[in-house]
Protein backbone atom coordinates (compact mmCIF):
# COMPACT_ATOMS: atom_id res chain seq x y z
CA UNK A 1 0.00 0.00 0.00
CA UNK A 2 1.32 3.38 -1.00
CA UNK A 3 2.10 6.01 1.56
CA UNK A 4 -0.85 8.38 1.96
CA UNK A 5 1.28 11.28 3.21
CA UNK A 6 3.33 11.18 0.01
CA UNK A 7 0.23 11.44 -2.19
CA UNK A 8 -1.22 14.29 -0.15
CA UNK A 9 2.12 16.13 -0.19
CA UNK A 10 2.24 15.77 -3.97
CA UNK A 11 -1.34 17.08 -4.26
CA UNK A 12 -0.47 20.07 -2.05
CA UNK A 13 2.63 20.92 -4.08
CA UNK A 14 0.76 20.70 -7.39
CA UNK A 15 -2.02 22.91 -5.98
CA UNK A 16 0.53 25.50 -4.86
CA UNK A 17 2.31 25.42 -8.23
CA UNK A 18 -1.06 26.02 -9.92
CA UNK A 19 -1.89 28.90 -7.56
CA UNK A 20 1.54 30.46 -8.18
CA UNK A 21 0.99 30.09 -11.91
CA UNK A 22 -2.27 32.03 -11.72
CA UNK A 23 -0.41 34.79 -9.86
CA UNK A 24 2.68 34.87 -12.08
CA UNK A 25 1.28 34.58 -15.59
CA UNK A 26 -0.68 37.29 -17.44
CA UNK A 27 -1.75 35.12 -20.38
CA UNK A 28 -5.43 34.18 -19.73
CA UNK A 29 -5.03 30.77 -21.38
CA UNK A 30 -2.08 29.75 -19.20
CA UNK A 31 -3.90 31.09 -16.14
CA UNK A 32 -6.81 28.85 -17.10
CA UNK A 33 -4.51 25.83 -17.47
CA UNK A 34 -3.14 26.58 -13.99
CA UNK A 35 -6.70 26.64 -12.59
CA UNK A 36 -7.21 23.19 -14.15
CA UNK A 37 -4.02 22.10 -12.44
CA UNK A 38 -5.48 23.12 -9.08
CA UNK A 39 -8.63 21.10 -9.89
CA UNK A 40 -6.38 18.14 -10.60
CA UNK A 41 -4.53 18.48 -7.31
CA UNK A 42 -7.85 18.36 -5.45
CA UNK A 43 -8.86 15.28 -7.45
CA UNK A 44 -5.56 13.62 -6.61
CA UNK A 45 -6.13 14.24 -2.90
CA UNK A 46 -9.63 12.73 -3.18
CA UNK A 47 -8.36 9.61 -4.95
CA UNK A 48 -5.53 9.18 -2.44
CA UNK A 49 -7.92 9.45 0.53
CA UNK A 50 -10.43 7.09 -1.15
CA UNK A 51 -7.62 4.56 -1.47
CA UNK A 52 -6.49 5.15 2.11
CA UNK A 53 -9.93 4.60 3.65
CA UNK A 54 -10.96 1.90 1.18
CA UNK A 55 -14.10 3.77 0.20
CA UNK A 56 -15.29 4.34 -3.35
CA UNK A 57 -17.14 7.62 -2.62
CA UNK A 58 -14.01 9.68 -3.17
CA UNK A 59 -13.71 8.31 -6.68
CA UNK A 60 -17.38 9.12 -7.35
CA UNK A 61 -16.63 12.69 -6.30
CA UNK A 62 -13.68 12.84 -8.72
CA UNK A 63 -15.93 11.56 -11.49
CA UNK A 64 -18.36 14.42 -10.87
CA UNK A 65 -15.54 16.98 -10.59
CA UNK A 66 -14.14 15.91 -13.98
CA UNK A 67 -17.59 16.43 -15.56
CA UNK A 68 -17.96 19.86 -13.95
CA UNK A 69 -14.41 20.83 -14.98
CA UNK A 70 -15.14 19.89 -18.61
CA UNK A 71 -18.21 22.15 -18.63
CA UNK A 72 -16.22 24.92 -16.94
CA UNK A 73 -13.41 24.75 -19.51
CA UNK A 74 -15.85 24.99 -22.42
CA UNK A 75 -17.63 28.03 -20.97
CA UNK A 76 -14.42 29.73 -19.79
CA UNK A 77 -12.68 29.41 -23.16
CA UNK A 78 -15.80 30.68 -24.93
CA UNK A 79 -15.73 33.75 -22.68
CA UNK A 80 -12.00 34.34 -23.29
CA UNK A 81 -12.49 34.09 -27.07
CA UNK A 82 -15.54 36.38 -26.96
CA UNK A 83 -13.60 38.99 -24.97
CA UNK A 84 -10.66 38.75 -27.36
CA UNK A 85 -12.91 39.24 -30.39
CA UNK A 86 -14.65 42.31 -28.98
CA UNK A 87 -11.78 43.97 -27.12
CA UNK A 88 -8.76 42.91 -29.21
CA UNK A 89 -6.91 42.77 -25.92
CA UNK A 90 -6.02 39.93 -23.60
CA UNK A 91 -4.16 41.66 -20.79
CA UNK A 92 -6.07 40.48 -17.73
CA UNK A 93 -5.27 43.70 -15.87
CA UNK A 94 -6.98 45.97 -18.39
CA UNK A 95 -10.08 43.89 -19.14
CA UNK A 96 -12.89 45.23 -16.97
CA UNK A 97 -15.97 44.46 -19.10
CA UNK A 98 -17.32 41.90 -16.66
CA UNK A 99 -17.02 44.06 -13.58
CA UNK A 100 -20.82 44.45 -13.47
Amino acid at each position, binding site marked *: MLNIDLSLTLATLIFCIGATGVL*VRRDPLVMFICIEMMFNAANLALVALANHFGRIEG*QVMVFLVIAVAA*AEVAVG*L*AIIIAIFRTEKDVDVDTISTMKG
Partner: protein
Amino acid sequence: MNEILFDLCAALALITALAVVFTKRTQYAALFFVSHLMAIAAIYALLNAPVLAALQVMVYAGAVMVVFVFAIMILDADELEKLMPAQEGKTFIVAGVLGLALIGAFFGFSNHFDVTHALAPAAAANATLLSVDNMASLARVLYRDYLFPFEMTGVLLLVAVVGIMVMAKRKLD
Protein backbone atom coordinates in the same frame (compact mmCIF):
# COMPACT_ATOMS: atom_id res chain seq x y z
CA MET B 1 7.87 -1.72 -7.42
CA ASN B 2 4.73 0.37 -7.01
CA GLU B 3 6.65 2.80 -4.82
CA ILE B 4 9.30 3.37 -7.48
CA LEU B 5 6.62 3.90 -10.15
CA PHE B 6 4.80 6.31 -7.86
CA ASP B 7 7.97 8.32 -7.22
CA LEU B 8 8.74 8.47 -10.94
CA CYS B 9 5.23 9.65 -11.82
CA ALA B 10 5.22 12.15 -8.95
CA ALA B 11 8.55 13.61 -10.12
CA LEU B 12 7.26 13.81 -13.70
CA ALA B 13 4.03 15.48 -12.54
CA LEU B 14 5.93 18.09 -10.51
CA ILE B 15 8.46 18.85 -13.27
CA THR B 16 5.77 19.23 -15.93
CA ALA B 17 3.65 21.38 -13.57
CA LEU B 18 6.61 23.74 -13.08
CA ALA B 19 7.24 23.70 -16.83
CA VAL B 20 3.63 24.81 -17.47
CA VAL B 21 4.11 27.81 -15.19
CA PHE B 22 7.56 28.86 -16.38
CA THR B 23 7.58 28.12 -20.10
CA LYS B 24 7.36 31.20 -22.28
CA ARG B 25 5.02 29.99 -25.02
CA THR B 26 1.34 29.12 -24.63
CA GLN B 27 1.46 26.08 -26.93
CA TYR B 28 4.28 24.53 -24.91
CA ALA B 29 2.35 25.15 -21.70
CA ALA B 30 -0.59 23.20 -23.16
CA LEU B 31 1.66 20.31 -24.22
CA PHE B 32 3.39 20.18 -20.82
CA PHE B 33 -0.03 20.14 -19.19
CA VAL B 34 -1.00 17.08 -21.26
CA SER B 35 2.06 15.19 -19.97
CA HIS B 36 1.22 16.41 -16.46
CA LEU B 37 -2.27 14.93 -16.81
CA MET B 38 -0.79 11.64 -18.07
CA ALA B 39 1.48 11.41 -15.02
CA ILE B 40 -1.51 12.08 -12.73
CA ALA B 41 -3.49 9.39 -14.58
CA ALA B 42 -0.70 6.91 -13.91
CA ILE B 43 -0.82 7.85 -10.22
CA TYR B 44 -4.61 7.26 -10.22
CA ALA B 45 -3.98 3.78 -11.60
CA LEU B 46 -1.45 3.12 -8.83
CA LEU B 47 -4.00 4.34 -6.22
CA ASN B 48 -6.58 1.67 -7.17
CA ALA B 49 -8.59 3.92 -9.48
CA PRO B 50 -8.10 2.47 -13.00
CA VAL B 51 -11.47 3.79 -14.22
CA LEU B 52 -10.57 7.34 -13.24
CA ALA B 53 -7.16 6.92 -14.88
CA ALA B 54 -8.87 6.04 -18.16
CA LEU B 55 -11.36 8.91 -17.74
CA GLN B 56 -8.51 11.32 -17.01
CA VAL B 57 -6.76 10.37 -20.26
CA MET B 58 -9.93 10.44 -22.38
CA VAL B 59 -11.77 13.44 -20.94
CA TYR B 60 -8.96 15.65 -19.63
CA ALA B 61 -5.91 14.89 -21.74
CA GLY B 62 -8.16 14.20 -24.72
CA ALA B 63 -11.30 16.30 -24.95
CA VAL B 64 -10.50 19.23 -22.66
CA MET B 65 -6.99 19.77 -23.99
CA VAL B 66 -8.24 19.61 -27.60
CA VAL B 67 -10.57 22.49 -26.74
CA PHE B 68 -7.60 24.33 -25.22
CA VAL B 69 -5.43 23.81 -28.31
CA PHE B 70 -8.32 24.99 -30.50
CA ALA B 71 -8.61 28.14 -28.40
CA ILE B 72 -4.84 28.73 -28.70
CA MET B 73 -5.14 28.32 -32.48
CA ILE B 74 -8.10 30.71 -32.76
CA LEU B 75 -6.47 33.34 -30.56
CA ASP B 76 -3.14 32.94 -32.43
CA ALA B 77 -0.59 32.49 -29.67
CA ASP B 78 2.15 34.50 -31.41
CA GLU B 79 -0.19 37.48 -31.70
CA LEU B 80 -1.08 37.06 -28.02
CA GLU B 81 2.58 37.34 -27.04
CA LYS B 82 2.92 40.62 -28.92
CA LEU B 83 -0.11 42.05 -27.11
CA MET B 84 1.17 40.95 -23.73
CA PRO B 85 3.13 43.60 -21.81
CA ALA B 86 6.62 42.58 -20.80
CA GLN B 87 6.77 40.54 -17.61
CA GLU B 88 8.20 42.56 -14.75
CA GLY B 89 10.72 40.91 -12.49
CA LYS B 90 8.99 42.38 -9.47
CA THR B 91 5.70 40.52 -10.05
CA PHE B 92 7.66 37.33 -10.52
CA ILE B 93 9.35 37.68 -7.15
CA VAL B 94 6.17 38.70 -5.31
CA ALA B 95 4.21 35.81 -6.81
CA GLY B 96 7.02 33.39 -6.04
CA VAL B 97 7.10 34.48 -2.41
CA LEU B 98 3.28 34.19 -2.21
CA GLY B 99 3.46 30.67 -3.67
CA LEU B 100 6.10 29.60 -1.15
CA ALA B 101 4.02 31.16 1.65
CA LEU B 102 1.01 29.16 0.45
CA ILE B 103 3.01 25.93 0.56
CA GLY B 104 4.24 26.82 4.05
CA ALA B 105 0.70 27.61 5.22
CA PHE B 106 -0.60 24.28 3.91
CA PHE B 107 2.06 22.26 5.68
CA GLY B 108 1.76 24.38 8.81
CA PHE B 109 -2.00 23.79 9.02
CA SER B 110 -1.74 20.11 8.18
CA ASN B 111 -0.29 19.55 11.65
CA HIS B 112 -3.49 20.95 13.21
CA PHE B 113 -5.89 18.88 11.11
CA ASP B 114 -4.68 15.31 11.11
CA VAL B 115 -7.05 14.06 8.40
CA THR B 116 -5.30 10.87 7.46
CA HIS B 117 -5.12 9.42 10.94
CA ALA B 118 -8.48 10.70 12.23
CA LEU B 119 -10.19 7.60 10.86
CA ALA B 120 -8.85 4.08 10.81
CA PRO B 121 -7.23 3.13 7.48
CA ALA B 122 -8.92 0.70 5.13
CA ALA B 123 -9.63 -2.83 6.23
CA ALA B 124 -8.02 -5.35 3.88
CA ALA B 125 -11.40 -6.54 2.58
CA ASN B 126 -12.43 -3.02 1.67
CA ALA B 127 -9.18 -2.37 -0.15
CA THR B 128 -9.69 -5.40 -2.39
CA LEU B 129 -13.24 -4.21 -3.09
CA LEU B 130 -11.68 -1.03 -4.42
CA SER B 131 -9.20 -2.66 -6.71
CA VAL B 132 -10.76 -5.90 -7.97
CA ASP B 133 -13.85 -4.58 -9.71
CA ASN B 134 -13.38 -0.84 -9.75
CA MET B 135 -15.82 -0.20 -12.59
CA ALA B 136 -18.65 -2.23 -11.03
CA SER B 137 -18.33 -0.76 -7.54
CA LEU B 138 -17.98 2.78 -8.91
CA ALA B 139 -21.11 2.32 -11.04
CA ARG B 140 -23.04 0.78 -8.14
CA VAL B 141 -22.39 3.76 -5.87
CA LEU B 142 -22.73 6.37 -8.61
CA TYR B 143 -26.08 5.16 -9.97
CA ARG B 144 -27.61 4.20 -6.63
CA ASP B 145 -26.48 6.59 -3.87
CA TYR B 146 -25.34 9.52 -6.04
CA LEU B 147 -27.92 9.36 -8.81
CA PHE B 148 -29.21 12.89 -8.24
CA PRO B 149 -25.78 14.60 -8.38
CA PHE B 150 -25.01 12.53 -11.46
CA GLU B 151 -28.20 13.70 -13.20
CA MET B 152 -27.41 17.26 -12.17
CA THR B 153 -24.02 17.09 -13.94
CA GLY B 154 -25.97 16.17 -17.06
CA VAL B 155 -28.13 19.26 -16.62
CA LEU B 156 -24.99 21.34 -16.00
CA LEU B 157 -23.39 20.12 -19.24
CA LEU B 158 -26.60 20.92 -21.13
CA VAL B 159 -26.71 24.43 -19.68
CA ALA B 160 -23.02 24.91 -20.58
CA VAL B 161 -23.67 23.87 -24.19
CA VAL B 162 -26.67 26.22 -24.48
CA GLY B 163 -24.66 29.06 -22.89
CA ILE B 164 -21.77 28.61 -25.36
CA MET B 165 -24.24 28.60 -28.28
CA VAL B 166 -25.79 31.85 -27.05
CA MET B 167 -22.34 33.42 -26.64
CA ALA B 168 -21.12 32.27 -30.06
CA LYS B 169 -24.25 33.31 -31.99
CA ARG B 170 -24.63 36.74 -30.44
CA LYS B 171 -24.05 39.70 -32.73
CA LEU B 172 -20.82 41.47 -31.87
CA ASP B 173 -21.24 45.18 -31.53
